[in-house]
């Protein structure tokens, strides 16, 4: 234990623990509540940057892993990161200070509770990304819901109750299915001698080596139970209708977190659980999922185009953009996987930034109705210039970040299925339509509503936010190899794990089953962290495929 680095634990729990400091402040002391929250989140971001130093490129194992007993023999505190979760962790710690900063003057009621909620969400989301134990994962997963639910329900706009209930109903429905699947998996693992575990790498190795025999039908049901929970979160068409309501009613910070990070919990889950645990079922379901993703891309874009409410419009664009990610995940190629991860980050920054900009407009006018705007570039040239820049990144203009993600996805998907990529490409045309048209109606032309004539341009605080996201957009666009090279080992590994043409037969053949050496928990604890990871398991899996 002593040799383990606790960096990850520190990163995960710092916001939660430090948020305790807020409790000592008087509820009316808004200034210090904000400052404290901002300081915490900035420290958190700074510490999380250390991950980049510690992270080993080319290593497909879970890095910085921590493992210790927790509840009984089955449930462990097991966390770690790989090329998939590394940047999602960084995205979370990057967006949290921005969402705190953007709420500076827009929250007036129960300020303490609000910033507390943001920090709790941060810990919960980070926990989801690093958990390697299904029980721990589920705990964090549920933990993200409650504060977000409050955020919409308490600090939201007019129809906040409806939106919050819809949000919770949708996601709870998925959660319950996932819970059943998790328990089912646990139950299956008990058939292994000394088994009975929630440990993800261990379960994965059982499944890959055929230690746990999973009839195709069962595999499909388990896959679907996980997938549905994640698909709701993404959200995949036709499970998306909670999103526009949640976004429209949420406060700006809520939308930034929701679009920036929370939606990625879904796509992350697909890549972390659905694919490696149930590759056979994933392949079988890919046809349907791919079509739904394409429908989502086109449908989300078309419905976005005609929205009269600007925030709702941006919300629908997420349906479209994340359709790309889902499509990429179910194309099973290295390039599409990297594109998917990159696009998750990129969408987090760009759409997060769109909501930040929108929030600044809302703070001034308290409406999102497009017809209430018009000619906003006249009173606020700086803000609207940044807004255009962000919109351009969102419509995948090279060399900005959105282009890299979308293009990698298209290249990768094309290797798997030509027509999918061709249909998905139309998203680029549609995004130009909805973004430029809405920008025209909001920003360009003469000022059409008299009230807007006197609006103030971006303040110093807002400029800090805008410059930060603009630099992030530019940096991601120009320096994409810094990201993709760190994903490579993980995505290659994922490709190997999902290459299972004919593998179910192998799994059924009893002669091929290699009994686990000694799957007792003690053995694993004693081993160095990397031993609990894929690297050791991959060769075995390969040997399995080529008898």
């Amino acid at each position, binding site marked *: 234990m002593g040799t383990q680095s606790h960096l990850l634990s520190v990163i995960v729990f710092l916001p939660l623990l430090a948020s305790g400091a807020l409790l000592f402040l008087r509820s009316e002391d808004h200034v210090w509540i904000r400052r404290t929250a901002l300081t915490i989140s900035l420290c958190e971001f700074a510490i999380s940057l250390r991950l980049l130093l510690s992270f080993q490129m080319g290593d497909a194992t879970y890095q910085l892993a921590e493992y210790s007993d927790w509840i009984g023999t089955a449930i462990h505190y097991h966390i770690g990161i790989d090329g998939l979760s590394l940047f999602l962790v960084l995205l979370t710690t990057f967006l949290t200070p921005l969402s705190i900063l953007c709420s500076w003057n827009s929250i007036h009621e129960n300020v303490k509770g609000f910033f507390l909620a943001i920090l709790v969400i941060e810990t919960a989301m980070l926990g989801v990304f690093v958990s390697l134990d299904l029980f721990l994962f589920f705990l964090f997963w549920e933990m993200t819901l409650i504060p977000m639910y409050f955020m919409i329900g308490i600090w939201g706009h007019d129809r906040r109750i409806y939106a919050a209930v819809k949000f919770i109903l949708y996601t709870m429905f998925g959660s*319950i299915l996932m819970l059943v699947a998790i328990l089912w998996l646990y139950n299956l693992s008990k058939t292994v001698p000394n088994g009975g575990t929630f440990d993800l790498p261990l379960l994965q190795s059982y499944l890959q080596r055929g230690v746990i025999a999973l009839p195709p039908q069962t595999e499909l049901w388990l896959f679907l139970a996980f997938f549905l929970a994640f698909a709701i979160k993404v959200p995949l068409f036709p499970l998306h209708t909670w999103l526009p309501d949640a976004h429209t009613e949420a406060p700006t910070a809520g939308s930034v977190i929701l679009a920036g990070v929370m939606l990625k919990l879904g796509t992350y889950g697909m890549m972390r659980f659905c694919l490696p645990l149930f590759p056979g079922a994933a392949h079988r379901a890919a046809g349907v999922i791919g079509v739904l993703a394409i429908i989502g891309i086109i449908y989300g874009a078309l*419905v976005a185009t005609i929205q009269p409410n600007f925030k709702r419009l941006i919300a629908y664009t997420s349906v479209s953009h994340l359709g790309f990610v889902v499509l990429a995940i179910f194309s099973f190629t290295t390039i599409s996987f990297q594109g998917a991860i990159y696009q998750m980050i990129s969408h987090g920054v760009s759409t997060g930034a769109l909501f930040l900009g929108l929030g600044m407009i809302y703070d001034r006018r308290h409406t999102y109705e497009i017809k209430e705007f018009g000619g906003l570039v006249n009173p606020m040239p700086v803000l609207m210039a940044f807004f255009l820049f962000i919109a351009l990144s969102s419509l995948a203009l090279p060399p900005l970040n959105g282009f890299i993600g979308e293009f990698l996805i298209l290249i990768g998907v094309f290797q798997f299925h030509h027509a999918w990529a061709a249909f998905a490409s139309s998203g680029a*045309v549609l995004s130009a339509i909805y973004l*430029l048209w809405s920008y025209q109606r909001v920003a360009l032309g003469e000022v059409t509503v008299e009230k807007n004539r006197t609006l103030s341009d971006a303040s110093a605080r807002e400029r800090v936010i805008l410059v930060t996201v603009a630099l992030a957009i530019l940096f991601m666009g120009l320096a994409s190899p810094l990201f993709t090279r760190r994903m490579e080992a993980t995505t290659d590994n994922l490709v190997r794990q999902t290459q299972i043409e004919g593998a179910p037969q192998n799994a059924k053949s009893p002669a091929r089953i290699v009994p686990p050496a000694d799957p007792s928990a003690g053995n694993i604890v004693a081993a160095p962290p990397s031993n609990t990871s894929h690297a050791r398991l991959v060769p075995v899996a390969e040997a399995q495929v080529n008898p």
Partner: protein
Amino acid sequence: MPILDHLWIIIALPLLGAAINGLLGKNWSKPVVNAVGIGSVSLAFFSVVEAVREFSLLSPDQIPWIRSYFTWITAGQFKVDFALQIDQLTVVMLLVVTFVGLLVHIYSTGYMAHEEGYYRFFAYLNLFVFFMLILVLAANVVLMFVGWEGVGLCSYLLVGFWFLKQSAISAGKKAFITTRVGDLGFTIGILLTFWTFHTVDFVAIFQQLVGKPAEAFAATGVLTAISLLLFIGAIGKSAQIPLYVWLPDAMEGPTPVSALIHAATMVTAGVYMVARMNPVFSRAPFAMFVVALIGALTAFFAATIGLVQTDIKKVLAYSTVSQLGYMFLGLGVGAYAAGVFHLMTHAFFKGLLFLAAGSVIHAMNGDQEMGHMGGLRTKIPITFWCMFIATLAIAGIPGFAGFFSKDEILDAAGSGPHANLWFYWLGLIGAGLTSFYMFRLIFLTFFGQPRYDEHKVHVHESPYSMTVPLICLAILSTCGGWFAAPHLVGGTDYFERFLHPVFAAYSVNPGIEQGVSLAGAAGSAGEIASSPMTELFHALTGWPVIIALLGLLVAWWFYIKSPDTPKKLAQSLSGPYTLLLHKYWIDELYHAVIVAPLLWISTNILWHVVDEGAIDGTVNGVARGLRESGGRVREIQSGNARSYATWVVVGAAGVTVLMLVLWTMVR
């Protein structure tokens, strides 16, 4: 070889100018903005000149000269370097882009002198040059796409430069979106290219083509597919049928923008791209046929619309669409060099026509209607003479730049190895129409009696900052074609010979390709095998010349000799006239068939029926069902956060209980 090793300097200069002016220029005086804007482009021009000098010293096996600076994208096998390349084709484009770009920058200091957002204009213009240079210097197709999209962005920003004017904003948006429709083809073309060749580098792609027999690809039709997809991109960017509709609208932008972006450079990007990808296109005969077909049809079709336009810039816009059609016709019949030659001469004379039109508009205080002009010849003589020379050039009057390039294209279409008489005649008639509408423009604008109120409009010649660029371009419009002059007397076409390596290096059959590119010379020389004088006589009395003069004559008859004729003709042929005047109602057709249905379906079917009706209806129905069975539900919707929180706690507790139940079950 300093510059050739540091090709990035060429593109960095305008970027720097754009950044400096864009970020800091707001509070600067005009001379400072000018110094940055013009300074950066002129430095870029001089570095291009130096690069060309160094390039001329390279040995043939060093060409294309490629320099890779860093890896921009990498994922699995897919790798895109920030790599720049220079070969003969790039040299032509570099010189055209930076030189015409420089002239337009200088011109703009006069034209835009009284505009708001002066610094912004120059920042956009510099940014445009930056992206255009990336486009032509790119050593792989993805980096080329970066430039391609980047110039589209600048076009959006510059067309909508007057952002208070709804028509200008809409035009900018239309330009961006329409070209993006074409880019859909380009994108899929790139995907297919990478899938086929496992690389996106031009040289690596072309080497694979040479390494394998054409039949290897012909069987799958993959080269045809790639070519056609890429060509869809070119159709969008270079405003060909059916995506040309954005270009006439783009005239809403300031006139220098029309000259640089919508005449000389950006719209020719499609031509450049096809020429760049010539090894692929040459192996796809059907795609070549389509390129020629679209080119010929557009050349003719757009010219017919140009006949009746009354806005001076609209005439030039349709003329540009038509001339781009000629370039594609040239490429499509295998005369790549001729297509690129016309690209260059067109950059000179059409750039000049737009700048001169800008000078006219400047003189008329912003009025663009030719119906309000007349008799300007003596009032603005420099503008008149420059515009007149450009008109001679575009009409194909012997001796001027356009004559040589258009002649070569028609020659290849009429008698080259891929000749097609239909295309030849479309091009030929188009040339006659071109001559007519251009002289119509000249006569309506500069001849006859003034039709404006001379007390209100004080016509004045433009300042030197505007006239000097006009004169420079007038000289080029005259001499720009003389590279090909010896060809008239059976000699060498130096332009073709210069570009020959680009189009021969990876050709299907080097012999044939050479034959194509030198078709005019070899073909006619072989047939007649006579003295240079007969050659010259033959060229000067060919159909293109006759038909150009015919166009001039008719224009003279209609607008000088008997000015009532057009009106009478319009009355007697009111059907065709109305059709042309309304541009065949293509915009209206697109709106009715594509835009309106899409918006209607999105609103009424997708949003209201599918989203709100079917999906939400189901969800809410389920929720209501649960609620009714649960009883006391009204209180949930009280809107009171506290009672609401209680509800969550209850819910969470419920989930926990459920978990425990399941827990005991699985144990």
